[in-house]
């Protein structure tokens, strides 16, 4: 067990996984100018939210719920792109690290989960998103702890993971509480605004005009 270097494998696998996902999504999404601009702006918005408030309010960030809502309104691909780019961009300003690929995967999954909610419960509103975002606050911490555990403890035992998770659980609950509060306060309007732009973006050109 001590001989196998899981930290190396999981970090490199994360890099390749996120690169492959982005490439595949890009090839299949057929992004037009409007989609590209909108995704970029939303990612910048989320990254700004993550950086500005992340420093001041510790882990209370008005960001994760917006990524979820983006997936909810614009679909899985837009949600994934906005989610994956949020940590990438904010880390350009607050510092890159080996944790970036796994953060990108986690945030991308947040966006895709929003789309999954829309797919499974077409009538769901912002209240469902509150629950999802609250859950993601903990799930995100658990997945990042998994990375931390693989890289820095050996031999890999469940107890080791449990202790690392326990060391971070207070931060995780802060994050979950932040998601809950922000989604409750801002979720309804955000969905409204994004829906408005979703309609506005959906342009169909008439042939032979």
């Amino acid at each position, binding site marked *: 067990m001590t001989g196998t270097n899981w930290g190396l494998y999981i970090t490199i696998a994360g890099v390749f996984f996120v690169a492959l996902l982005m490439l595949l999504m890009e090839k299949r999404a057929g992004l037009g100018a*409007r989609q*590209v*601009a*909108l995704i970029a*702006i939303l990612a*910048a918005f989320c*990254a700004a939210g993550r950086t500005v408030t992340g420093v001041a309010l510790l882990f209370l960030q008005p960001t994760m719920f917006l990524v979820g809502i983006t997936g909810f309104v614009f679909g899985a691909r837009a949600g994934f792109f906005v989610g994956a780019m949020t940590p990438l961009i904010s880390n350009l*300003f607050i510092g890159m690290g080996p944790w970036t690929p796994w953060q990108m995967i986690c945030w991308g999954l947040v966006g895709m989960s929003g789309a999954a909610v829309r797919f499974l419960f077409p009538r769901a509103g912002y209240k469902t998103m509150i629950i999802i975002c609250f859950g993601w606050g903990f799930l995100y911490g658990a997945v990042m702890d998994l990375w931390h555990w693989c890289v820095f*403890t050996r031999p890999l035992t469940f*107890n080791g993971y449990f202790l690392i998770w326990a060391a971070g659980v207070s931060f995780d609950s802060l994050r979950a509480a932040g998601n809950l509060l922000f989604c409750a306060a801002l979720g309804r309007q955000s969905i409204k605004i994004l829906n408005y732009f979703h309609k506005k973006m959906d342009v169909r050109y008439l042939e032979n005009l």
Partner: protein
Amino acid sequence: MLEKLYYQDKGLFLQSFHPATVLLYLLVLLVLSLLYDHPLYLLCLLFLLACLVKGTEGMAVWEGFLKIGLIMMLVLMVVNPLVIRSGATIIWQGPVVPLLGRLDISLEAIYFGLVSGLRLLVILSIFCLYNLMVNPDQALNLFARAAGKSALMVALATRMFPTMVRDLKRIKEVMELRGVDFEQGPLGQRVKKYAGLYNVLLFSSLEGSLEIAESMQARAYGSGRRTVYSRHLLRPRDYMTLGGSLLAMFAAVWGLAQGCGGFNFYPVMDDLIAGRGTLVVLVIVFCYLFVPLMLGGGYKYCRYIKSKI
């Protein structure tokens, strides 16, 4: 702080490499830091990184990284001995705790915590160096051929990021001039005021995105096949560094296959220097890894080398 990127172009030699070269070099360093368990090798890596950081005039930045690293290192050193039972030299017998079992602290587990803390410092330094050496625009340019739209989105978002922070301040100022006092009132009212600010920012930036899309379309975005070009050439310095890092990687893998650079912690630790082979491989690997620094020295002090690389 958020007005500019983490990376600063200082016109240094170490910043003049092709981005692909730097990425490969740093990747080799990262792989080595994860492959090696030997404390001596990890210490040498840290020394190499310190020299490189000094070469990029990033000592102040590095200090910030080291502070975070030391805190995380402390956590590792506490967690590790508590959960690992494989060490043979027990130095403290603790009570039985539910879920975790008996808390025995062994010398080997403490050492392992120390070494993985060292590895953490090395990894953090590699990324610190990445932030100091690689221009993100150029790194993005590497991926433009394979994933053009993703690269474009990242570039756009990076460009919009400071604008967004500035817009936030501007909108807040406008609202304050209109009589909204963000600091006054009970919490519920304050949240409402901030929610207003958030809505305006979200709405106006999304409006802005439609304008960007129109101007992209006006500049013929998506009207045909994309063309790609690169202005960055691979120079002799890049070839030498690339060669050095590949050779270092081969030497390190060969050394590991011969048992140099590995280190057993459990049940009893190996000797720090097991034989002459350990030192020989160490010197060979680090000779190759020091290539960019040697080139930097030559560039600074020797006019002939400067003209050739």
